[in-house]
């Protein structure tokens, strides 16, 4: 069967729809499948362009079997999200190659719509939304080829755009009012979430400096109280307590049922929107107040979520930036915070003993150690040299070049060797206020590690040796602190002010998108509807409001659909006017009366008007029912309207 005429147009539009729909999937599909899909689309283009026959069905059946086998081999389990999307993508291309009837066309179009949704599994950014909308536009235009032979390309697109534009109010109403639920309707397969970047539960030299190469947002914060100055913005994450000579690991901590410290001092409130990192911990400004719902506070003041953070998560917290905890700290915790593996770093142990004997008081010891860091001419760099077995020794005495994890790790080692309980805290430090929307943006490049030491009668003190060595890191952020800026993410280099400006605007747009479109969850829906004036938005009242608004909208659009009744063309209006003019003489036109019959009746009743009426009737029926070119038609219509207006009964 060769493709001609409308069938060819159909094939072109359907191929275009499939191409636009599948193109954004190419990044997330297995590369062999993307390649096969591209080949099949090219084959289809070749067939359409050259008017060739469609491939035979048995060939396609073999292809279906082959693709299924390949998908099963690639994914091992043929169920779930990713293999499902891969199979659908392959079927879509194969279906296109056998699309012969309009019915096949509908199958292709509906599969396209579904694949446009599947695109959101990979990501839901503004640009993805734009690409999807383009796909929906083309696919809807393709749907018109199944139902109309005569539209041109532009007309099809215009029709599609008009209909989608009319659908937008519906989308808004349903999006805002459709009751959202937190829990999935059905259990999700285990592969529903892939890996994400972020801090880890271990720390080795280099692990955080690797992270700073990413300019990705870690979380965003909106302060309701005062905004703490940069030097106080320590966002507490995993606390590392166990050291094996090279790697720091998260220690064991207890869940607390209440906040373990007496809250005092200035307090600020904030709402934090955390990007998914697939881990349990949440970040909190030191020291956090009562934990949010679905999270607990641990004995090392870390916030732990009850479920891994797999979606963007928003929570509200309070913070006491000036507070210290741990006045009556548990003996076992303090013992664990002094433990060191034997046989590592003899030179550091030697230094610790010297400092200890010179400063018996713990506070003085901390100060002396910081002084040592300051005097030893350390440099803060993103490219520290590699370290050997005695990593702390080599860093403190030989290389003296390192990143925050080197400083924190060696400081805590030094403190523990001197008999002071100490631990490494990882998290983020600083963040930048976006002037466009006022949100504080904390990026992966703000990842940081600092130390905590425990001093009798004072509790846990935060000590940031990095701040001693490179104060600008804490005051102004990473970009100001490191000499080797070319290694930083482009967005952080901030060479030109307009680059910064563009970045601010983009980030603010993304944030608004995240907060209001992607983050529109049950809580936000409730907040938003309350702000709109709904007293107690539950699913019942939302459904009622949704139905009422949709009903009104339908009425409005139906009114538009029927509105043409009043809009008669000028010729018709003039013709009706003629009948009204003659009505006083009892010569109104009857509904069933044709123009010529009417003219004859008037001509018999008022002979004076006979010839004028005849001319009018002749011209009117000629214009109304004859085949005229539009230009001559318009002129003739104008002359006829004049004639009608000049007629005086």
């Amino acid at each position, binding site marked *: 069967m060769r493709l001609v005429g409308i069938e060819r147009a159909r094939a072109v539009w359907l191929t275009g729809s499939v191409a636009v729909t599948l193109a954004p999937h190419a990044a997330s599909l297995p590369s062999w499948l993307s390649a096969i899909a591209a080949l099949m689309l090219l084959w289809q283009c070749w067939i359409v362009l050259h008017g060739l026959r469609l491939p035979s069905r048995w060939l396609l059946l073999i292809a279906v079997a082959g693709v299924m086998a390949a998908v099963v081999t690639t994914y091992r389990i043929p169920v779930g999200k990713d293999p499902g999307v891969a199979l659908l993508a392959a079927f879509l291309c194969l279906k296109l190659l056998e699309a012969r009837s309009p019915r096949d066309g509908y199958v292709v179009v509906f599969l396209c719509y579904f694949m*446009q*949704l599947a695109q959101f599994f990979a990501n839901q950014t503004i640009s993805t939304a734009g690409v999807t909308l383009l796909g929906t536009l083309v696919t809807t235009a393709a749907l018109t080829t199944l139902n109309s*032979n005569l539209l041109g390309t532009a007309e099809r697109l215009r029709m599609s755009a008009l209909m989608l534009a009319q659908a937008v109010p*519906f989308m808004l109403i349903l*999006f805002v009012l459709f009751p959202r639920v937190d829990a999935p309707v059905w259990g999700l397969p285990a592969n529903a979430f892939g890996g994400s970047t972020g801090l880890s539960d271990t720390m080795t030299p280099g692990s955080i400096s690797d992270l700073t190469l990413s300019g990705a947002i870690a979380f965003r914060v909106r302060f309701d109280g005062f905004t703490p100055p940069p030097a106080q913005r320590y966002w507490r994450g995993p606390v590392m307590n166990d050291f094996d000579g090279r790697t720091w690991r998260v220690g064991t901590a207890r869940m607390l049922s209440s906040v373990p410290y007496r809250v005092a001092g200035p307090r600020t409130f904030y709402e934090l929107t955390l990007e998914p990192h697939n881990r349990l911990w949440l970040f909190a400004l030191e020291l956090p107040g009562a934990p949010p719902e679905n999270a607990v506070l641990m004995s090392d003041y870390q916030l732990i979520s009850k479920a891994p953070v797999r979606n963007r998560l928003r929570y509200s917290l309070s913070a006491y930036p000036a507070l210290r905890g741990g006045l009556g700290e548990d003996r076992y915790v303090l013992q664990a915070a002094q433990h060191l593996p034997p046989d590592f770093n003899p030179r550091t142990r030697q230094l610790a003993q010297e400092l200890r004997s010179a400063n018996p008081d713990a506070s003085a010891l901390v100060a002396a150690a910081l002084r040592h860091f300051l005097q030893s001419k350390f440099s803060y760099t993103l490219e520290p040299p590699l370290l050997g077995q005695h990593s702390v020794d080599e860093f403190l005495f030989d290389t003296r070049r390192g990143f925050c994890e080197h400083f924190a790790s060696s400081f805590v080692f030094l403190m523990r060797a001197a008999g002071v309980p100490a631990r490494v805290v990882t998290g983020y430090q600083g963040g930048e206020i976006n002037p466009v929307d006022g949100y504080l943006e904390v990026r992966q490049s703000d990842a940081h590690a600092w130390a905590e030491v425990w001093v009798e009668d004072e509790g846990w003190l935060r000590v940031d040796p990095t701040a001693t060595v490179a104060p600008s890191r804490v005051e102004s952020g990473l970009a100001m602190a490191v000499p080797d800026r070319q290694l930083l993410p482009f967005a952080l280099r901030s060479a030109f002010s307009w680059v910064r400006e563009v970045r601010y605007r983009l980030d603010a747009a993304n944030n608004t998108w995240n907060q209001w479109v992607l983050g529109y969850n049950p809580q936000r829906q409730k907040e938003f509807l309350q702000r709109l004036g709904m007293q107690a938005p539950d699913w019942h009242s939302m459904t009622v409001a949704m139905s009422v608004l949709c009903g009104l909208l*339908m009425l409005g659009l139906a009114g538009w659909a029927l509105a*043409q009744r009043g809009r008669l063309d000028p010729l*018709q209006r003039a013709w009706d006017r003629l009948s009204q003019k003659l009505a006083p003489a009892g010569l109104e036109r009857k509904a069933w009366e044709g123009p010529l*019959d009417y003219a004859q009746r008037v001509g018999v009743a008022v002979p004076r008007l006979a010839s004028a009426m005849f001319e009018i009737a002749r011209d009117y029926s000629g214009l109304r029912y004859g085949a005229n070119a539009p230009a001559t038609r318009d002129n003739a219509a104008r002359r006829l309207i004049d004639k009608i207006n000049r007629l005086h009964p």
Partner: protein
Amino acid sequence: MLLNDLPTPIPAKTAAIAQRRIGGRFNAWLFRDRGPESTPIVLTQRRVFVLPTRPGLVFGAVLAAMLIGAINYQLSLGFALTFLLAGLGHSAILHTFRNLAQLQIEAGAAAAVFCGDPARFTLRLINRRGNARYALKLRTGSALTTIDRVDAEGTSNAELVLPTQWRGWLRLPRVTLETRYPLGLIRAWSYLQPDMSILVWPRPEPDPPPLPLGHGNAGGIAASAAGRDDFAGLRLYQPGDSPRHIAWKAAAGGGPLLTKHFSGMQAGNVVLRWDDLPPQMDNESRLSRLAAWIERANSGGMGWRLELPGASLGPAEGSAHRNACLKALALFGQPQEPA
């Protein structure tokens, strides 16, 4: 979804069964089957029915699947896309409905045919709106025709071709006018029965005996100057013709403007008499033979007189006389007006 104030109508197929079962009264009420209607017929919104097509139902199922996917994976944009497509479905209802609503239908040409030849009913679809209408499908019995486009404030002719089996009046049955434009998810349809009938003449006998000549004055065709004596036929209207001679009836019936043409008598010597035919011939064969003779006489430019039981036409000549004679044959023994 239905855009008129009726309860949910049942699909046409079910309706057809229902009509057979309950005698069609319910159906007649539901779809306002009121028999032949005078034209122009305007498809008001009460006459246009709307229901989803099979692809439309599948579309709904796809949307349900998409909604579940969006809920399960908490895809905010998934919700947005699903709701956008739901809105598209609603927009499709309006556009499909609008594509049919307020369309005006007028009866067009319905020229008489010989029995066995296809009868062509022409309907004029008049679009008084500023937007074109597309993909309109008309169906009645075995006749099906598709109009790809009716221009904005334009007119298109739709021709429904029905087979003819019997002489006499053939009335246009109820026509279904439907459209699925633009997306095919929704079908809007309307039933209409314009009051149109086609006169079916008896089929002329294929190989008739020669014309019966010899009555009256042999070969004498009295020529007379063209005048106003007798109506001789119609010819196309030309500018300058007196309005008094316009054939108003023919024009009002939808035909072209014609001028009545008068001439002096041009009587022929051919007399076609029912009673002269062999007595063993049945009625239909007689009508066939007379029709064949009339055709032959007319094409030969002769005048003739037709004598049927109870009626006599002519003597005269020309196509008007031929049509009158054929009409008399077609309606022989039948009601003179369409039932």
